[in-house]
Structure formats: C-alpha cells, structure tokens
C-alpha cells in the first residue's frame, strides 16, 4: 500500500492524490489499530511428510559429522585381530593387531597408547626342566589410527597363551592360544638314515624285537625292547643311557612290553602286552602304578599294544584280541571304550597302533583290515584309508601276531 502511495506521489497528480488521501488514511488507521494474531494456524489439513530415504541420509549425515569421544581406552572393549588360519612356526615372525576402543565403545582414531600395552607369553604345558624365561621376542607398533600391530617370535614349538594387557589388565579376548610348529619336513626328500644304532642281542644297546620308539622332552630316545622285556633309553645320538624292567609279572617287570607313551609330567606309560596291564613309571623308570587285568570287561585287557596320550592326559589303548579301544584317565580309571570285531566302518580286526591329532581325532591302525580308521574324540567313525596291497598308500599283508 505504501508502495502504491509512493507510486502515486511520483506521478505528480495533485487532484488524484487528494482524492485518495481519505482512503489511505482510513486504511492506515485500520492497520495500526488492528491486533495481529501471530500464532500458527492449527489446521488438520496441514501436515509434514518426508521421504524416508532422504530422512536416513539426513541422519547418517548428522552421525558422520563426528562423535563425542574421550581419549581414554577401555580395556574391556579393545579387540585382538588375528588370522586364526595362519601357521605359526618357531623362530619365525608372526603378527596380530589390536583395535583400541574408547569407553564410549567407539574405535579410537588416534594412537599414542603404545607403551600402555604389554604382551605376556606363557607356555601352556611347562616342563620342569625348562628355564622360566624363554626369551621370546615381541614388539608393538603404533599405527596412529587407533590400531596397533604386534610382532612376535617364539623360540620353541608348543602351545602358548598370549596375554595382551592394557595397563596390566587383560583386554577383551586375552589371553588367546596359539600353536607354534617346527618347520615341517618334506617327507618326499627323506632318503637315507643319518644315524643307525643297535643290533640283535641282550646287552645294553642291543634289541630283540623292539616294538615302539618315542622321544621325551629332553630329546632322549625310549625304546620298548619287547623280547628282552625291558625299556631302554638313549640320548639323541644313540648313546645308551639306562634300562629298566626284566621278565616277570611283578611291579616294574614286563612280559613283552609293546607301546610306550609319555605324559606332560614326563611319566613313561607302557602297555605290558602279555601281562595284560598298563604300567606307569616316572621319567627315570621308577615304578609308580599299574592298572588292568586279563579279560574283556571295562578296564580289562586282552593283549594291549598301541598306546597314546591325548591332550587331556587320558590314556588310549588298542587291544589286539579284544578288537577295541579303551580310554582311561591319567591315573588309569576307565572312562570309555569303542570298537568291536568286524570289517565295517568303525569295526576293528586286530588293532595295534593308535595316535591322536591336534583336533583330538583318534587314528587307529586296523591291522588285519589293512587300513587306518579315523574316529572323533567320542569314538564315532569319521573316515578310513588304505586297503590291502603293496601299491602306494596301501598296506601289505597283515603282519602276524608273535
């Protein structure tokens, strides 16, 4: 209206201006005196709608603007990043990551806490004669983005627990377990023995039908000298160290010792085949205990031969004439059994060798079925291989019981 008035005034038309004066005056008075309602109208017809896709974009834009964060790492929220499939070899560097998180649970974007982290390396089964300190190396690198990289080198093979600590407290998922292996031999390149020792006879260092050979934690070689009814111990170079046992059925005596195994304590466990029992000795060959008697009940034996120890320290035994596997705890208390005579999957015909792999699977030499059978740790059949013959991967005639 004011614009209109100004417009009229510029036209310099006095008569018209005067005639309009009254109208403008009344209009202006109305505008001045009127009380304006400035609250919004409430009409049900008015509504706001938004495209949900755009709404999400708006929210995510807002989130991306930044986060409220502290510079304080939460011990409980930090994560370990490791490739579980990687093979870890002794004396060879391997690495894993640490992702640091704040108290608010957000990943940290900056570094600077390298010196607050410590790594502790513990061997799972510590042997008495080993030094406390293994001098394994580790160092941590700050990647300056909230992540850290740890490089480690372990000197001996075995199972280890790795503790990752922040200000002396374990972070989430610490400790974790690793298995350190020796570099695997290439079996196709194994041709000639580098050392041979022993001959037929009854003197120290001589044998009559040795059945089993194992090594202990010192690397000594332990042999069941079956028809001399004794166990002989040699150093890794084949030098005679000691012998224990003689023919008989008293404690510490043998009648055809067959399988031997050592447990984590260093005890030597022997299947005393023709005495139908298992005997346990300390690492020096002193008799500790025995279990089993002739028969086919639980805990009884009919020619026990192959023997091995699983990761729990349980004792697993094959029986030539009972065609089964029995499992005992480390003291010799019966736990379970599986197998029966036959040639179907899971059945056995004169088993005489047993081993457990790192998964806990039980691998059995099923001698008269000319095959190897693999069972899970509960004795459920998994697979088999072999078959009779002298081709590669097959087994020649069963070797008769002597």
């Amino acid at each position, binding site marked *: 209206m004011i614009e209109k008035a100004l417009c009229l005034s510029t036209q310099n038309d006095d008569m018209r201006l005067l005639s309009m004066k009254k109208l403008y005056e009344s209009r202006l008075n109305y505008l001045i005196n009127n009380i304006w309602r400035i609250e919004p109208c409430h009409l049900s017809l008015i509504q706001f709608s938004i495209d949900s896709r755009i709404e999400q974009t708006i929210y995510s834009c807002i989130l991306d603007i930044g986060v409220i964060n502290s510079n304080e790492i939460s011990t409980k929220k930090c994560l370990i990043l490791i490739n579980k499939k990687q093979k870890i070899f002794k004396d060879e560097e391997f690495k894993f990551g640490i992702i640091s998180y704040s108290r608010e649970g957000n990943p940290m974007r900056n570094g600077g806490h390298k010196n607050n982290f410590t790594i502790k390396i513990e061997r799972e089964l510590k042997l008495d004669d080993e030094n406390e300190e293994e001098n394994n190396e580790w160092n941590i690198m700050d990647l300056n983005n909230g992540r850290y990289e740890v490089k480690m080198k372990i000197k*001996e*093979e075995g199972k280890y627990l790795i503790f990752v600590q922040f200000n002396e407290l374990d972070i989430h998922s610490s400790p974790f377990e690793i*298995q350190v*292996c*020796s*570099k*695997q*031999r290439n*079996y*196709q390149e*194994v*041709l*000639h*023995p*580098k*050392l*041979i*020792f*022993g*001959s*037929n*006879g009854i003197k120290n260092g*001589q*044998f*009559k*039908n*040795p*059945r*089993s*050979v*194992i*090594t202990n934690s010192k*690397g000594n*070689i332990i*042999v*069941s000298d079956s028809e001399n009814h004794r166990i002989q111990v*040699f150093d*890794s170079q*084949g030098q005679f160290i000691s012998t224990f046992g003689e023919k008989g059925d008293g404690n510490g005596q043998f009648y055809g010792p067959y399988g031997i195994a050592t447990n984590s304590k260093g005890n030597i466990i022997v299947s005393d085949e023709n005495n139908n029992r298992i005997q346990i000795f300390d690492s020096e060959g002193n008799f500790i205990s025995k279990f089993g008697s002739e028969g086919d009940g639980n805990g009884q034996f009919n020619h026990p031969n*192959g023997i091995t120890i699983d990761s729990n320290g349980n004792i697993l035994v094959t029986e030539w004439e009972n065609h089964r596997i029995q499992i005992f705890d480390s003291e010799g208390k019966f736990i379970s059994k599986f197998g029966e005579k036959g040639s179907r999957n899971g059945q056995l015909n004169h088993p*005489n*060798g*047993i*081993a*457990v*792999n*790192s998964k806990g699977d039980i*691998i059995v*030499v099923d001698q008269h079925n000319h095959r*190897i059978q693999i069972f899970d740790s509960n004795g459920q059949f998994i*697979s*088999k*291989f*072999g078959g009779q013959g*002298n081709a*590669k*991967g097959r087994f*020649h*005639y069963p*070797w008769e019981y002597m």
Partner: protein
Amino acid sequence: MGIHVDLEGNILIADRNNNGVQVFSPNGEYIAHIREATPVGITIDPKTQNIIVCGNENKISIF
C-alpha cells in the same frame, strides 16, 4: 604297524611288510614312502624333526 601323527596332522605308518614308512595327509592322501627294512615303531622328535624308526632288524634308524 606303528603310527605317528606329526604336528600338522600328517600320519606316518611304519608298515613292516611293505619295507617302509608311508606318509599320509591328515585326510589320508598318500604323500610319500620312506624306505626302511621291516619298520615296526615310529616317532618324530618335535624339536629336531628327526624321524626315528625301530623294527625287526633290531636297530634304530634316524632320518
């Protein structure tokens, strides 16, 4: 037949009448044959990786 499982799960079988040690993968695939007369017992020392075999010849062979 003597048996030993190495740290990677490979299975070594001392097969007396085949005059050798047969090596299989963890799944039982044939890998290698190590010639040795009448082997009965077998082990591998985990530290040295030496393969140690005893048998009817009344001797111990270290590979």
